[in-house]
Protein backbone atom coordinates (compact mmCIF):
# COMPACT_ATOMS: atom_id res chain seq x y z
CA UNK A 1 0.00 0.00 0.00
CA UNK A 2 2.77 2.41 1.00
CA UNK A 3 4.67 1.50 -2.13
CA UNK A 4 1.67 2.34 -4.30
CA UNK A 5 1.11 5.63 -2.53
CA UNK A 6 4.72 6.63 -3.02
CA UNK A 7 4.62 5.72 -6.68
CA UNK A 8 1.38 7.69 -7.12
CA UNK A 9 2.89 10.71 -5.37
CA UNK A 10 5.94 10.55 -7.64
CA UNK A 11 3.83 10.39 -10.81
CA UNK A 12 1.60 13.21 -9.61
CA UNK A 13 4.58 15.40 -8.81
CA UNK A 14 6.19 14.74 -12.18
CA UNK A 15 2.95 15.60 -13.90
CA UNK A 16 2.84 19.06 -12.37
CA UNK A 17 4.66 20.48 -15.35
CA UNK A 18 1.78 19.50 -17.62
CA UNK A 19 -1.01 20.70 -15.38
CA UNK A 20 -2.47 24.18 -15.22
CA UNK A 21 -1.21 26.19 -12.32
CA UNK A 22 -3.54 26.91 -9.42
CA UNK A 23 -2.85 30.61 -9.78
CA UNK A 24 -3.53 30.83 -13.53
CA UNK A 25 -6.79 32.79 -13.08
CA UNK A 26 -5.05 35.33 -10.86
CA UNK A 27 -1.97 35.52 -13.08
CA UNK A 28 -4.07 36.17 -16.20
CA UNK A 29 -5.28 39.44 -14.75
CA UNK A 30 -1.94 40.64 -13.42
CA UNK A 31 -0.52 43.65 -15.22
CA UNK A 32 2.88 43.88 -16.80
CA UNK A 33 5.19 45.45 -14.23
CA UNK A 34 8.78 46.59 -14.26
CA UNK A 35 10.94 44.78 -11.73
CA UNK A 36 12.77 46.99 -9.27
CA UNK A 37 16.58 47.03 -9.63
CA UNK A 38 18.50 44.72 -7.34
CA UNK A 39 21.92 46.27 -8.01
CA UNK A 40 23.05 49.84 -8.49
CA UNK A 41 23.65 50.93 -12.06
CA UNK A 42 21.19 48.58 -13.72
CA UNK A 43 19.04 49.44 -16.71
CA UNK A 44 15.53 48.36 -17.57
CA UNK A 45 15.08 46.57 -20.90
CA UNK A 46 11.74 46.74 -22.67
CA UNK A 47 10.76 44.92 -25.84
CA UNK A 48 7.90 43.38 -27.76
CA UNK A 49 7.77 40.16 -29.76
CA UNK A 50 4.78 39.20 -31.87
CA UNK A 51 4.33 35.78 -33.45
CA UNK A 52 2.75 35.06 -36.80
CA UNK A 53 -0.37 32.97 -36.08
CA UNK A 54 -0.17 29.31 -37.07
CA UNK A 55 -1.45 25.86 -36.25
CA UNK A 56 1.90 24.32 -35.35
CA UNK A 57 4.58 25.54 -33.04
CA UNK A 58 4.48 28.39 -30.56
CA UNK A 59 2.40 31.52 -31.02
CA UNK A 60 3.80 33.30 -27.98
CA UNK A 61 6.83 33.08 -25.75
CA UNK A 62 7.36 32.10 -22.14
CA UNK A 63 10.92 33.27 -21.65
CA UNK A 64 13.50 35.65 -23.13
CA UNK A 65 17.17 34.77 -22.58
CA UNK A 66 20.15 37.02 -23.20
CA UNK A 67 23.82 36.31 -23.62
CA UNK A 68 26.24 38.85 -22.21
CA UNK A 69 29.16 39.41 -24.53
CA UNK A 70 30.85 42.28 -22.66
CA UNK A 71 32.39 42.40 -20.17
CA UNK A 72 33.74 39.04 -21.13
CA UNK A 73 32.68 36.09 -19.04
CA UNK A 74 32.49 32.48 -20.01
CA UNK A 75 28.93 31.41 -20.87
CA UNK A 76 27.23 34.31 -19.17
CA UNK A 77 23.59 33.72 -20.01
CA UNK A 78 20.81 35.59 -18.34
CA UNK A 79 17.08 35.00 -18.14
CA UNK A 80 15.75 38.47 -18.85
CA UNK A 81 12.07 37.70 -18.34
CA UNK A 82 10.18 34.47 -17.84
CA UNK A 83 6.82 33.01 -16.99
CA UNK A 84 8.47 29.73 -16.04
CA UNK A 85 9.41 30.55 -12.51
CA UNK A 86 8.45 29.14 -9.16
CA UNK A 87 5.87 30.95 -7.06
CA UNK A 88 5.18 33.31 -9.93
CA UNK A 89 1.90 34.37 -8.32
CA UNK A 90 3.94 36.22 -5.72
CA UNK A 91 6.33 37.85 -8.15
CA UNK A 92 6.29 40.70 -10.61
CA UNK A 93 4.82 39.80 -13.99
CA UNK A 94 7.46 40.59 -16.60
CA UNK A 95 5.84 39.18 -19.73
CA UNK A 96 2.38 39.98 -21.02
CA UNK A 97 0.73 40.31 -24.42
CA UNK A 98 4.06 40.02 -26.20
CA UNK A 99 5.76 42.74 -24.13
CA UNK A 100 8.63 41.93 -21.81
CA UNK A 101 10.63 43.79 -19.18
CA UNK A 102 13.81 42.89 -17.36
CA UNK A 103 16.82 44.45 -15.70
CA UNK A 104 20.47 44.12 -16.69
CA UNK A 105 23.77 45.38 -15.34
CA UNK A 106 26.01 47.50 -17.57
CA UNK A 107 27.28 45.38 -20.44
CA UNK A 108 26.81 44.40 -24.06
CA UNK A 109 24.12 41.80 -24.61
CA UNK A 110 22.65 39.71 -27.40
CA UNK A 111 19.29 38.03 -27.63
CA UNK A 112 20.09 34.36 -27.24
CA UNK A 113 16.82 32.45 -27.35
CA UNK A 114 13.12 32.40 -26.70
CA UNK A 115 11.14 29.59 -25.16
CA UNK A 116 7.87 29.07 -26.98
CA UNK A 117 4.48 28.49 -25.39
CA UNK A 118 3.68 25.30 -27.31
CA UNK A 119 3.27 21.97 -25.53
CA UNK A 120 6.88 21.00 -26.10
CA UNK A 121 8.13 24.45 -25.09
CA UNK A 122 10.18 24.86 -28.24
CA UNK A 123 13.50 26.58 -27.78
CA UNK A 124 13.97 29.20 -30.49
CA UNK A 125 17.71 29.77 -30.61
CA UNK A 126 18.95 32.85 -32.43
CA UNK A 127 21.51 32.16 -35.12
CA UNK A 128 24.83 33.99 -35.23
CA UNK A 129 23.55 36.78 -37.49
CA UNK A 130 20.44 37.22 -35.41
CA UNK A 131 22.42 37.46 -32.22
CA UNK A 132 24.74 40.06 -33.67
CA UNK A 133 21.83 42.05 -35.05
CA UNK A 134 20.16 42.04 -31.66
CA UNK A 135 23.25 43.25 -29.79
CA UNK A 136 22.71 46.22 -27.50
CA UNK A 137 24.73 47.95 -24.82
CA UNK A 138 23.52 48.96 -21.39
CA UNK A 139 25.67 51.86 -20.22
CA UNK A 140 24.20 54.73 -18.19
CA UNK A 141 21.34 53.61 -15.96
CA UNK A 142 18.04 54.12 -17.76
CA UNK A 143 15.41 52.44 -19.88
CA UNK A 144 16.44 50.63 -23.05
CA UNK A 145 13.70 50.08 -25.58
CA UNK A 146 14.72 47.24 -27.88
CA UNK A 147 11.70 47.87 -30.07
CA UNK A 148 9.13 45.48 -31.49
CA UNK A 149 9.81 42.34 -33.50
CA UNK A 150 7.69 40.02 -35.58
CA UNK A 151 8.38 36.28 -35.65
CA UNK A 152 7.62 35.23 -39.22
CA UNK A 153 7.04 31.52 -39.66
CA UNK A 154 9.14 29.31 -41.84
CA UNK A 155 8.18 25.90 -43.24
CA UNK A 156 5.47 24.27 -41.07
CA UNK A 157 6.21 26.72 -38.29
CA UNK A 158 9.38 24.83 -37.41
CA UNK A 159 11.58 27.87 -37.80
CA UNK A 160 11.11 31.59 -37.52
CA UNK A 161 12.63 34.72 -38.92
CA UNK A 162 12.73 37.73 -36.66
CA UNK A 163 11.82 40.98 -38.36
CA UNK A 164 11.99 44.42 -36.73
CA UNK A 165 8.74 46.35 -36.72
CA UNK A 166 9.13 50.10 -37.28
CA UNK A 167 8.47 51.97 -34.04
CA UNK A 168 5.90 54.19 -35.71
CA UNK A 169 3.71 51.11 -36.31
CA UNK A 170 3.41 50.34 -32.58
CA UNK A 171 2.87 53.72 -30.90
CA UNK A 172 0.82 52.06 -28.15
CA UNK A 173 3.96 50.46 -26.73
CA UNK A 174 4.94 53.67 -24.97
CA UNK A 175 1.67 53.67 -23.04
CA UNK A 176 2.35 50.06 -22.02
CA UNK A 177 5.80 51.02 -20.80
CA UNK A 178 4.54 54.06 -18.91
CA UNK A 179 1.96 51.97 -17.10
CA UNK A 180 4.48 49.24 -16.30
CA UNK A 181 7.03 51.58 -14.74
CA UNK A 182 4.56 53.87 -12.93
CA UNK A 183 5.54 54.08 -9.27
CA UNK A 184 8.78 52.16 -9.74
CA UNK A 185 12.41 53.25 -9.65
CA UNK A 186 12.39 53.43 -13.43
CA UNK A 187 9.74 56.11 -13.70
CA UNK A 188 12.40 58.82 -13.39
CA UNK A 189 14.01 57.63 -16.62
CA UNK A 190 10.89 57.97 -18.75
CA UNK A 191 11.04 60.65 -21.41
CA UNK A 192 8.57 63.47 -20.90
CA UNK A 193 5.11 62.98 -22.44
CA UNK A 194 5.05 63.79 -26.10
CA UNK A 195 8.76 63.09 -26.60
CA UNK A 196 9.91 59.91 -28.30
Amino acid at each position, binding site marked *: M*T*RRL*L*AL*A*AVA*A*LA*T*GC*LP*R*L*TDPVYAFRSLRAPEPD*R*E*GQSLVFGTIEFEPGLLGPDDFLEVDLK*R*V*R*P*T*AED*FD*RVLATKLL*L*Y*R*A*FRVRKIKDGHFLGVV*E*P*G*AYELRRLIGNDLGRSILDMDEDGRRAS*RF*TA*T*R*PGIIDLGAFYMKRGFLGASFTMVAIPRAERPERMAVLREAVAGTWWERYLPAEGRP
Partner: protein
Amino acid sequence: MIPIAVPLALAAALGSLPAGGGTPALPSLRAAVTGRLRFEQGGRTVTVGEAQRLLGGRRIGLTLRSGWEVAPARLGADGQFTAEVAPGSWRIEWIDVGDGAEFLPTTLEAEARDGRTTCIGQITVAFDDVQSELGSSSAGTVTVEDRCGELGGGKAGVSLAHPGGDPAGDQLAVDWMDVAAGLRTEAVFQDEDLGLRVAWSIPFRRPLAWQGNLLVSGAVVRYWSSEGPPHEALEVGGGLSPFNGIELSGGLQVGVGGGPTAPWANLRWGGNSYALNARAHFEPGGVVWSFGFDLTPFHVLGSFL
Protein backbone atom coordinates in the same frame (compact mmCIF):
# COMPACT_ATOMS: atom_id res chain seq x y z
CA MET B 1 36.19 93.41 8.87
CA ILE B 2 32.45 93.36 9.43
CA PRO B 3 31.46 92.52 5.84
CA ILE B 4 33.71 89.43 6.02
CA ALA B 5 32.80 88.45 9.58
CA VAL B 6 29.06 88.29 8.90
CA PRO B 7 29.12 85.70 6.13
CA LEU B 8 31.75 83.69 8.03
CA ALA B 9 29.59 83.61 11.16
CA LEU B 10 26.56 82.71 9.08
CA ALA B 11 28.46 79.89 7.38
CA ALA B 12 29.69 78.59 10.75
CA ALA B 13 26.17 78.68 12.17
CA LEU B 14 24.71 76.90 9.15
CA GLY B 15 27.52 74.35 9.25
CA SER B 16 26.71 73.46 12.85
CA LEU B 17 23.03 72.76 12.10
CA PRO B 18 22.04 69.09 12.08
CA ALA B 19 21.59 67.59 8.65
CA GLY B 20 17.99 67.55 7.42
CA GLY B 21 16.64 64.00 7.38
CA GLY B 22 14.67 64.31 4.17
CA THR B 23 17.26 66.09 2.08
CA PRO B 24 19.42 63.78 -0.02
CA ALA B 25 23.11 64.49 0.27
CA LEU B 26 24.59 66.13 -2.79
CA PRO B 27 27.66 64.45 -4.22
CA SER B 28 30.79 66.39 -3.43
CA LEU B 29 33.11 66.83 -6.39
CA ARG B 30 36.30 66.97 -4.45
CA ALA B 31 38.46 64.56 -6.35
CA ALA B 32 39.65 64.07 -9.88
CA VAL B 33 41.04 61.22 -11.90
CA THR B 34 43.26 61.68 -14.88
CA GLY B 35 44.91 59.44 -17.41
CA ARG B 36 45.20 58.73 -21.11
CA LEU B 37 43.05 56.67 -23.44
CA ARG B 38 44.80 55.09 -26.38
CA PHE B 39 43.66 52.74 -29.10
CA GLU B 40 45.95 50.19 -30.67
CA GLN B 41 45.68 48.52 -34.04
CA GLY B 42 48.31 45.96 -34.99
CA GLY B 43 50.76 47.42 -32.46
CA ARG B 44 50.29 50.93 -33.85
CA THR B 45 48.80 53.74 -31.75
CA VAL B 46 45.58 55.27 -32.95
CA THR B 47 44.84 58.44 -30.99
CA VAL B 48 41.35 59.46 -30.00
CA GLY B 49 41.46 62.25 -32.59
CA GLU B 50 42.48 59.84 -35.36
CA ALA B 51 39.80 57.39 -34.32
CA GLN B 52 37.17 60.12 -34.50
CA ARG B 53 38.28 60.93 -38.02
CA LEU B 54 38.20 57.24 -38.98
CA LEU B 55 34.66 57.04 -37.68
CA GLY B 56 33.50 59.97 -39.77
CA GLY B 57 33.48 62.49 -36.95
CA ARG B 58 31.51 60.42 -34.42
CA ARG B 59 32.28 61.77 -30.98
CA ILE B 60 34.34 59.58 -28.70
CA GLY B 61 33.86 60.05 -24.97
CA LEU B 62 34.79 58.43 -21.72
CA THR B 63 32.46 58.05 -18.77
CA LEU B 64 33.04 56.73 -15.28
CA ARG B 65 30.36 55.08 -13.17
CA SER B 66 29.94 54.58 -9.46
CA GLY B 67 26.67 52.91 -8.54
CA TRP B 68 23.92 55.07 -10.03
CA GLU B 69 26.25 58.04 -10.61
CA VAL B 70 27.95 58.63 -13.93
CA ALA B 71 30.64 61.22 -14.54
CA PRO B 72 31.76 62.23 -18.04
CA ALA B 73 35.46 62.89 -18.49
CA ARG B 74 36.98 65.69 -20.52
CA LEU B 75 38.76 63.81 -23.27
CA GLY B 76 41.27 65.46 -25.57
CA ALA B 77 42.25 64.44 -29.09
CA ASP B 78 45.51 63.07 -27.71
CA GLY B 79 43.53 60.81 -25.39
CA GLN B 80 44.34 62.62 -22.18
CA PHE B 81 41.31 62.75 -19.90
CA THR B 82 40.26 64.24 -16.58
CA ALA B 83 37.07 63.63 -14.66
CA GLU B 84 35.92 65.48 -11.58
CA VAL B 85 34.19 63.03 -9.31
CA ALA B 86 33.20 62.38 -5.74
CA PRO B 87 35.87 60.53 -3.78
CA GLY B 88 35.44 56.78 -3.93
CA SER B 89 35.63 53.86 -6.29
CA TRP B 90 34.73 54.46 -9.94
CA ARG B 91 34.41 52.03 -12.83
CA ILE B 92 35.44 52.53 -16.45
CA GLU B 93 33.19 50.20 -18.40
CA TRP B 94 32.57 51.67 -21.80
CA ILE B 95 33.69 54.25 -24.33
CA ASP B 96 30.99 56.42 -25.85
CA VAL B 97 31.07 56.31 -29.64
CA GLY B 98 28.54 58.68 -31.17
CA ASP B 99 25.13 57.51 -29.95
CA GLY B 100 26.46 54.02 -29.25
CA ALA B 101 29.16 52.57 -27.06
CA GLU B 102 32.14 50.28 -27.10
CA PHE B 103 31.81 48.11 -24.04
CA LEU B 104 35.19 47.05 -22.72
CA PRO B 105 35.94 43.34 -22.45
CA THR B 106 37.38 43.96 -19.00
CA THR B 107 35.95 46.67 -16.81
CA LEU B 108 38.39 48.77 -14.84
CA GLU B 109 38.11 50.18 -11.39
CA ALA B 110 39.86 53.29 -10.15
CA GLU B 111 40.06 54.98 -6.77
CA ALA B 112 39.45 58.72 -6.58
CA ARG B 113 41.07 60.13 -3.45
CA ASP B 114 39.54 62.97 -1.50
CA GLY B 115 40.95 66.37 -2.35
CA ARG B 116 43.46 64.99 -4.83
CA THR B 117 43.97 64.31 -8.47
CA THR B 118 44.74 60.67 -9.06
CA CYS B 119 46.44 59.41 -12.18
CA ILE B 120 44.97 56.05 -13.13
CA GLY B 121 47.42 55.36 -15.96
CA GLN B 122 47.35 54.94 -19.70
CA ILE B 123 44.47 52.75 -20.82
CA THR B 124 45.10 50.93 -24.08
CA VAL B 125 42.23 49.28 -25.93
CA ALA B 126 43.39 46.97 -28.73
CA PHE B 127 41.47 46.31 -31.95
CA ASP B 128 42.13 44.39 -35.14
CA ASP B 129 40.56 47.25 -37.07
CA VAL B 130 39.56 50.40 -35.22
CA GLN B 131 37.42 51.75 -38.04
CA SER B 132 35.12 48.75 -38.31
CA GLU B 133 35.20 47.53 -34.72
CA LEU B 134 35.15 50.58 -32.45
CA GLY B 135 31.57 50.97 -31.30
CA SER B 136 30.51 47.37 -31.80
CA SER B 137 31.87 46.02 -28.50
CA SER B 138 34.50 43.97 -30.33
CA ALA B 139 37.69 45.19 -28.67
CA GLY B 140 40.28 42.55 -27.96
CA THR B 141 42.14 43.48 -24.80
CA VAL B 142 42.40 46.33 -22.33
CA THR B 143 45.68 47.09 -20.59
CA VAL B 144 46.76 49.76 -18.15
CA GLU B 145 50.29 51.12 -18.01
CA ASP B 146 51.89 53.53 -15.61
CA ARG B 147 52.66 56.49 -17.86
CA CYS B 148 51.70 58.96 -15.19
CA GLY B 149 55.08 60.66 -15.35
CA GLU B 150 54.18 61.83 -18.85
CA LEU B 151 50.63 62.79 -17.94
CA GLY B 152 50.23 64.41 -14.56
CA GLY B 153 53.15 66.77 -14.43
CA GLY B 154 54.24 65.08 -11.23
CA LYS B 155 51.44 66.65 -9.18
CA ALA B 156 48.93 63.84 -9.34
CA GLY B 157 49.04 60.85 -7.05
CA VAL B 158 49.24 57.53 -8.81
CA SER B 159 46.77 54.72 -8.30
CA LEU B 160 46.50 52.69 -11.46
CA ALA B 161 43.14 51.45 -12.63
CA HIS B 162 42.80 47.71 -12.21
CA PRO B 163 40.32 45.07 -13.37
CA GLY B 164 37.05 45.47 -11.49
CA GLY B 165 34.66 42.81 -10.31
CA ASP B 166 31.82 41.58 -12.46
CA PRO B 167 29.05 44.21 -12.58
CA ALA B 168 26.51 41.44 -12.12
CA GLY B 169 28.14 40.26 -8.93
CA ASP B 170 28.12 36.57 -8.18
CA GLN B 171 25.18 35.16 -10.11
CA LEU B 172 25.60 31.81 -8.41
CA ALA B 173 25.61 33.06 -4.85
CA VAL B 174 23.50 30.95 -2.51
CA ASP B 175 20.25 32.58 -1.40
CA TRP B 176 17.37 31.49 0.82
CA MET B 177 15.57 29.80 -2.07
CA ASP B 178 18.55 27.55 -2.61
CA VAL B 179 18.49 26.60 1.04
CA ALA B 180 14.73 25.93 0.93
CA ALA B 181 15.21 23.79 -2.17
CA GLY B 182 17.54 21.57 -0.18
CA LEU B 183 14.64 19.86 1.57
CA ARG B 184 14.11 16.66 -0.39
CA THR B 185 11.84 13.65 -0.01
CA GLU B 186 12.99 10.39 -1.51
CA ALA B 187 11.43 7.02 -2.13
CA VAL B 188 14.17 4.46 -1.39
CA PHE B 189 14.21 0.91 -2.73
CA GLN B 190 16.56 -1.50 -0.95
CA ASP B 191 16.16 -5.21 -1.81
CA GLU B 192 12.58 -6.00 -0.83
CA ASP B 193 12.34 -3.04 1.50
CA LEU B 194 10.85 0.33 0.79
CA GLY B 195 12.01 3.47 2.52
CA LEU B 196 11.10 7.12 2.78
CA ARG B 197 13.98 9.49 3.24
CA VAL B 198 13.57 13.13 4.19
CA ALA B 199 16.84 15.00 3.81
CA TRP B 200 17.99 18.58 3.98
CA SER B 201 21.05 19.50 1.98
CA ILE B 202 22.48 22.95 2.61
CA PRO B 203 24.66 24.41 -0.16
CA PHE B 204 27.68 26.60 0.58
CA ARG B 205 29.41 27.75 -2.56
CA ARG B 206 26.83 27.42 -5.32
CA PRO B 207 23.16 26.50 -5.61
CA LEU B 208 22.51 22.79 -5.24
CA ALA B 209 23.37 20.63 -8.23
CA TRP B 210 25.69 23.33 -9.65
CA GLN B 211 29.24 22.43 -10.47
CA GLY B 212 31.59 23.44 -7.68
CA ASN B 213 29.06 23.37 -4.88
CA LEU B 214 29.83 21.96 -1.44
CA LEU B 215 27.06 20.82 0.88
CA VAL B 216 26.27 19.31 4.24
CA SER B 217 23.20 17.20 4.78
CA GLY B 218 21.15 15.55 7.43
CA ALA B 219 18.35 13.04 6.93
CA VAL B 220 15.78 10.81 8.58
CA VAL B 221 14.98 7.50 6.89
CA ARG B 222 12.19 5.04 7.64
CA TYR B 223 12.24 1.58 6.11
CA TRP B 224 9.25 -0.70 5.77
CA SER B 225 10.69 -4.19 5.79
CA SER B 226 8.92 -7.25 4.40
CA GLU B 227 10.49 -9.37 7.13
CA GLY B 228 10.00 -7.31 10.25
CA PRO B 229 8.72 -4.12 11.80
CA PRO B 230 9.60 -0.73 10.31
CA HIS B 231 12.85 0.77 11.46
CA GLU B 232 14.38 4.23 11.28
CA ALA B 233 17.82 5.69 10.85
CA LEU B 234 19.48 9.10 11.00
CA GLU B 235 22.08 10.29 8.52
CA VAL B 236 24.63 13.06 8.44
CA GLY B 237 27.03 13.75 5.65
CA GLY B 238 28.63 16.14 3.23
CA GLY B 239 29.24 16.27 -0.47
CA LEU B 240 30.15 18.17 -3.59
CA SER B 241 29.01 18.68 -7.18
CA PRO B 242 31.86 17.88 -9.60
CA PHE B 243 29.57 18.62 -12.58
CA ASN B 244 26.23 20.30 -13.06
CA GLY B 245 23.46 17.90 -12.15
CA ILE B 246 25.72 15.51 -10.25
CA GLU B 247 26.11 15.33 -6.50
CA LEU B 248 28.52 13.02 -4.73
CA SER B 249 27.97 12.72 -1.01
CA GLY B 250 28.88 10.49 1.86
CA GLY B 251 28.43 10.20 5.59
CA LEU B 252 27.30 8.05 8.39
CA GLN B 253 23.97 6.33 9.02
CA VAL B 254 23.00 5.57 12.60
CA GLY B 255 20.17 3.17 13.25
CA VAL B 256 17.56 4.40 15.73
CA GLY B 257 16.87 2.04 18.64
CA GLY B 258 20.01 -0.03 18.35
CA GLY B 259 20.18 -0.39 14.59
CA PRO B 260 23.53 -0.74 12.82
CA THR B 261 25.80 2.20 12.16
CA ALA B 262 27.39 2.28 8.74
CA PRO B 263 29.06 4.73 6.41
CA TRP B 264 27.36 5.47 3.12
CA ALA B 265 28.12 7.05 -0.22
CA ASN B 266 25.56 8.46 -2.64
CA LEU B 267 25.46 9.51 -6.28
CA ARG B 268 22.61 11.88 -7.16
CA TRP B 269 21.85 12.55 -10.80
CA GLY B 270 19.33 15.23 -11.68
CA GLY B 271 18.36 18.84 -11.21
CA ASN B 272 16.90 20.67 -8.28
CA SER B 273 13.34 19.48 -8.86
CA TYR B 274 13.93 15.73 -8.94
CA ALA B 275 16.73 13.23 -9.34
CA LEU B 276 17.76 9.59 -9.23
CA ASN B 277 19.96 8.32 -6.43
CA ALA B 278 22.25 5.30 -6.09
CA ARG B 279 23.52 4.70 -2.57
CA ALA B 280 25.97 2.20 -1.08
CA HIS B 281 25.85 1.31 2.62
CA PHE B 282 29.11 -0.16 3.85
CA GLU B 283 27.80 -2.56 6.48
CA PRO B 284 29.89 -5.18 8.33
CA GLY B 285 28.39 -7.94 6.18
CA GLY B 286 29.17 -6.21 2.91
CA VAL B 287 27.91 -3.40 0.69
CA VAL B 288 24.15 -2.95 0.56
CA TRP B 289 22.87 -1.00 -2.41
CA SER B 290 19.75 1.11 -2.51
CA PHE B 291 18.21 3.21 -5.24
CA GLY B 292 15.89 6.13 -4.92
CA PHE B 293 13.96 8.88 -6.59
CA ASP B 294 13.80 12.24 -4.84
CA LEU B 295 11.52 15.22 -5.20
CA THR B 296 11.90 18.74 -3.86
CA PRO B 297 8.66 19.91 -2.20
CA PHE B 298 9.72 23.56 -2.61
CA HIS B 299 9.77 23.08 -6.39
CA VAL B 300 6.63 20.98 -6.58
CA LEU B 301 4.64 23.56 -4.62
CA GLY B 302 6.24 26.48 -6.44
CA SER B 303 5.39 25.06 -9.85
CA PHE B 304 1.70 25.03 -8.88
CA LEU B 305 1.66 28.64 -7.63
